[in-house]
């Protein structure tokens, strides 16, 4: 029963962090010093996660292509393999794959970093100096995730399609060009925009959850571990639930 008040309290704290951070987004974008910090966060969010994102999305496309391709082959419908892989990636799996990679790589790092700062009194030091942690720490990190997640998701779709095409060509006798033309034939701009929008939402959720878990850390080193773990788990749940909700609204 202790879970309910704790959950409500965490939601309230996350909401507060979101509200306070969003008001500093223009500040982060306009002034040169916070903008430099934003670029550092964009680099950490986008470039540093590329190796993991590449492997995950490539293999996700390959698995998708293999499983769907085997079923389509039973009905001699391999022609539609590219379309099936592309639509799945654009609508769901690109954003999902991006979300789990960012939650695992970036969200966990943010929660651990801010959690360590909290237990080392650095957050209190900022407050005493008159520097709001939401402006100095939260806003650049959350904004970077919101801006970079769609880019990463689009990259996931490209890599996933590539992986799917390779499996189609090497194991399912689907010509690569045929796979690609099928993929481009069925995809609509709505699928792309919904996927992009969904990934931006995932970026926002991961950012807010990770920052609030980090800033809410207590109990020393154990607390940092717990916050990091909670940030990843809650982000995964938020990605799955909100992903379904968005799909339900648009499809």
């Amino acid at each position, binding site marked *: 029963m202790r879970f309910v008040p704790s959950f409500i309290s965490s939601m309230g704290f996350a909401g507060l962090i979101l509200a306070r951070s969003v008001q500093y987004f223009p500040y982060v974008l306009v002034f040169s010093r916070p903008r430099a910090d934003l670029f550092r966060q964009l680099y950490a969010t986008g470039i540093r996660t590329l190796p993991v994102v590449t492997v995950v999305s490539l293999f996700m496309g390959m698995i998708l292509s293999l499983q769907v391709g085997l079923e389509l082959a039973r009905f001699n419908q391999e022609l539609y393999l590219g379309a099936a892989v592309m639509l799945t990636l654009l609508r769901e799996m690109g954003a999902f794959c991006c979300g789990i990679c960012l939650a695992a790589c970036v969200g966990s790092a943010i929660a651990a970093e801010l959690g360590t*700062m909290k237990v*080392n*009194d*650095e957050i*209190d*030091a900022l407050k*005493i*100096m008159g520097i709001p942690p939401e402006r100095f720490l939260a806003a650049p990190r959350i904004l970077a995730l919101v801006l970079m997640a769609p880019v990463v998701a689009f990259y996931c779709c490209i890599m996933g399609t590539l992986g799917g095409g390779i499996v189609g060509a090497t194991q399912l006798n689907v010509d690569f060009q045929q796979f690609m033309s099928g993929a481009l034939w069925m995809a609509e701009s709505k699928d792309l925009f919904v996927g992009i929008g969904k990934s931006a939402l995932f970026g926002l959720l991961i950012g807010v959850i990770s920052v609030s878990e980090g800033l809410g850390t207590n109990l020393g080193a154990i607390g940092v571990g717990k916050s990091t773990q909670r940030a990843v788990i809650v982000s995964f749940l938020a990605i799955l639930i909100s992903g379904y909700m968005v799909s339900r609204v648009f499809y």
Partner: protein
Amino acid sequence: MGEKVIEFDSVTKSFGGKKVLDALTFDVKRGEVFVILGPSGTGKSVTLKHAIGLMEPDSGEVRRADVRFGYLFQSGALLAWKSVWENVALPLEETMRLDAKEVARRVDNALAAVGLTDAADKYPSEISGGMQKRAGLARAIVREAEVILYDEPTSGLDPVTSVHISKLISDLNKKRNVTSVVVTHDMVLAAKTASRIMLVKDGKAVVCLPPEEFLKSDIPEVRSFIAASKGEGI
């Protein structure tokens, strides 16, 4: 001395049912070095966090004068990804509209005051605990704080560095008229720097006296604390 810069009025604070501050009442006057002594776990750091506004009391009231406060944390609380110079410059860059030259002048002066000019480009992980505390102190004085609160400024330091920190606290008070509130269990630091010493036990103020009277006091808690700090009874 006269104007009260911090005033505690029957401040009570509990954590998980345990009373950490129990109707604590005292005041700190402008220009003095007010030392809060006491064994570990008696609510000294909690007192300091109430004084700066990081914690709110369950009951009672903390009144603060409208002055610039600085705070030296036990660990120094420096940002790991910024150099010592950048850490000291941080409050100026983030809260004041100063040109780069003025920021550099103030930061260089603050670092010189704590003897850290040579370590300006180093990162917190590259310097010792004592240097981290001095960097934290430079960050507190760079904003020209009128009141600085010190949380265990000499804990974990060797005797030479402890004396250096004590001298810095004393110099800031004498040369810049900085009011200091020092939380410690270091008897030497207290005796050398304090204008008044308050002994805290179980969240209550046992006594608050000038150092010479404190050292002569017959109050059992004071005697036992002084005896323990001399290593008697080992």
